[in-house]
């Protein structure tokens, strides 16, 4: 067969002139690729890359809301000042603790949820609908739901604990009638972790379930025929096969949790005092509420190198596991 000319390729399109030449150029993968990629790249440069550079510049300047120009370079002064704030050190610690605790909870619960949802059973549709609901809410609204569930006076959890005798006079957690979840340092942080697990579990489960359903059925059936117990199948076949997707799920969860301030902003307001502070909320309070743009930028810049390194390592690891 003769090599097809452009005119036959484009059917009735004009073969000559400007349109024809543009059509020809678009047949080259590099050119068409650039044209299709350009809008997204331009958008990301304008709204992510440029602001990112401005943020870095801000963190080395002395800009405030009153005087937002980046005219004087103060070096690492902001980072030094930020490190000396007790609230910052607490926020850094809490951000790490909350993220790790959430990720651990998610890995355990998502593995269980995936084992349940990988099967067919009656009423599965309804279960899927109810299971997805926490993820369907904006985070701020989930936080408000939990604010009411953990209310200092009217928490239904306290009411139940009181009924079964855990709270109240004579109970192991008594004699107080209330737990005051959000008013105590560790209970407050624990509540934030619980909310984060609750709202991110559906997404993590979908990611892991996708990997679980890719495990060939024959492998599982063969193991069953060979007489392997459920636990053995779970830890010998399923968990190792899921490792790459679990890493992706961990990464997504960690990112959703570490950058979110509304859970803390609405639940504990970083309190009591600053003991429940986390980095994004501290950056917001410094940068916007107190108007110190430079320090706000320095605070939120702190985690980026760590996050980037962790993500690269995790993705490399996941793709290597994938190839084996």
């Amino acid at each position: 067969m003769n090599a097809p000319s452009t005119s036959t390729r484009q059917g009735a399109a004009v073969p000559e002139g400007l349109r024809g030449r543009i059509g020809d150029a678009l047949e080259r993968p590099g050119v068409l690729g650039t044209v299709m990629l350009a809008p997204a790249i331009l958008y990301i440069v304008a709204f992510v890359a440029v602001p990112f550079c401005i943020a870095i510049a801000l963190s080395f300047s002395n800009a405030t809301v009153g005087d937002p120009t980046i005219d004087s370079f103060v070096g690492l002064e902001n980072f030094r000042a930020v490190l000396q704030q007790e609230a910052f050190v607490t926020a850094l610690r809490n951000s790490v603790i909350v993220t790790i605790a959430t990720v651990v909870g998610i890995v355990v619960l998502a593995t269980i949820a995936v084992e349940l949802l990988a099967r067919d059973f009656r009423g599965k549709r309804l279960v899927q609908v109810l299971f997805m609901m926490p993820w369907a809410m904006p985070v701020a609204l989930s936080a408000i739901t939990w604010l009411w569930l953990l209310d200092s006076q009217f928490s239904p959890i306290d009411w139940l604990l009181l009924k079964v005798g855990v709270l109240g006079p004579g109970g192991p957690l008594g004699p107080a009638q209330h737990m005051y979840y959000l008013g105590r340092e560790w209970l407050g942080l624990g509540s934030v972790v619980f909310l984060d697990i609750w709202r991110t579990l559906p997404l993590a489960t979908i990611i892991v379930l996708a990997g679980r359903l890719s495990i060939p059925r024959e492998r599982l059936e063969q193991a069953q025929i060979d007489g392997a117990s459920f636990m053995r199948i779970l830890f010998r076949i399923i968990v190792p096969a899921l490792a790459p997707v679990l890493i992706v799920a961990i990464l997504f969860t960690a990112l959703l949790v570490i950058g979110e301030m509304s859970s803390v902003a609405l639940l504990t307001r970083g309190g009591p005092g600053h003991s429940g502070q986390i980095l994004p909320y501290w950056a917001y309070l410094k940068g916007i509420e107190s108007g110190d743009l430079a320090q706000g930028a320095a605070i939120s810049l702190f985690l980026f190198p760590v996050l980037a390194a962790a993500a690269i390592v995790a993705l490399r690891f996941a793709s290597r596991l994938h190839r084996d």
Partner: protein
Amino acid sequence: MNRQARKTSFYAAVVLLVLFSFLPIIYAVITIFKKESELFTPGSNPFIYEQGATLEHLTYLFTNTQFPTFLWNSVVIGLFVVAITVLLAVPAAYALARLTGRWGESSGMAIFLVYLIPPTLLFIPLFRVVVWLNLANSIWALVVVLPTITVPFCTWLLLGFFRSVPRELDEAALLDGCSRFAAFRKVVLPQALPGIGACIVFAFSLSLSNYIYSVTFVSESASRNLSAGVPTELIRGDVYFWPSLMAATAIVAIPLGIAYGLLFDYLVRGFQSAESG
């Protein structure tokens, strides 16, 4: 373990999982219809109506607050963000998967790095961009800014999708005389529809969920969305309008939860291709 016991324990585990996710929402729904006097009676059973139910909090939410406006703004913002995301991410993902050669191969990682830059870092400079574009205090500020979150995420998701479509398909289309773009539109795109569906769901959900941009870029209450509007409008200092707040939450969560639940298998399939690509 015999079969019956195994079945029972399986269903028990499913029920526990559902209760974990759904119990807080059931409690929110119960609260909506409680009378104020009963709600704040110490020691009263929080799960039943001892003094009867009322609709006053629900009507209050729709007639005395700006909740309908917030809901409308959220929907408009969501639809525009979805449209922008699909228009930018679909061609970009296809280009990276097929057209840019070696350069496109390591792009998955690069896109992920963009996604890693936290909104808490960008909101200060982005606020200036918004002011410069003259969009502060309008919903268009969020329409312009929220795709920064959804475009990288959806491009990453679609990249795996396009990679999982066999190359032979587009090559056959090219041999049949299609132009490269036509091969993409007529052959590859239909194969990737589940992935695009997953992107639409995720983009809408992420646009609804964002709190920090919503709070900082829009302070005029008529232009606020649900995330920013509901907490500020229905929490006045120390006064919380609990039943109305719970109504606002449930009205958003239940229809969307049903939609996501029915799309569940579709979403899983979307991720399956993204992960295998």
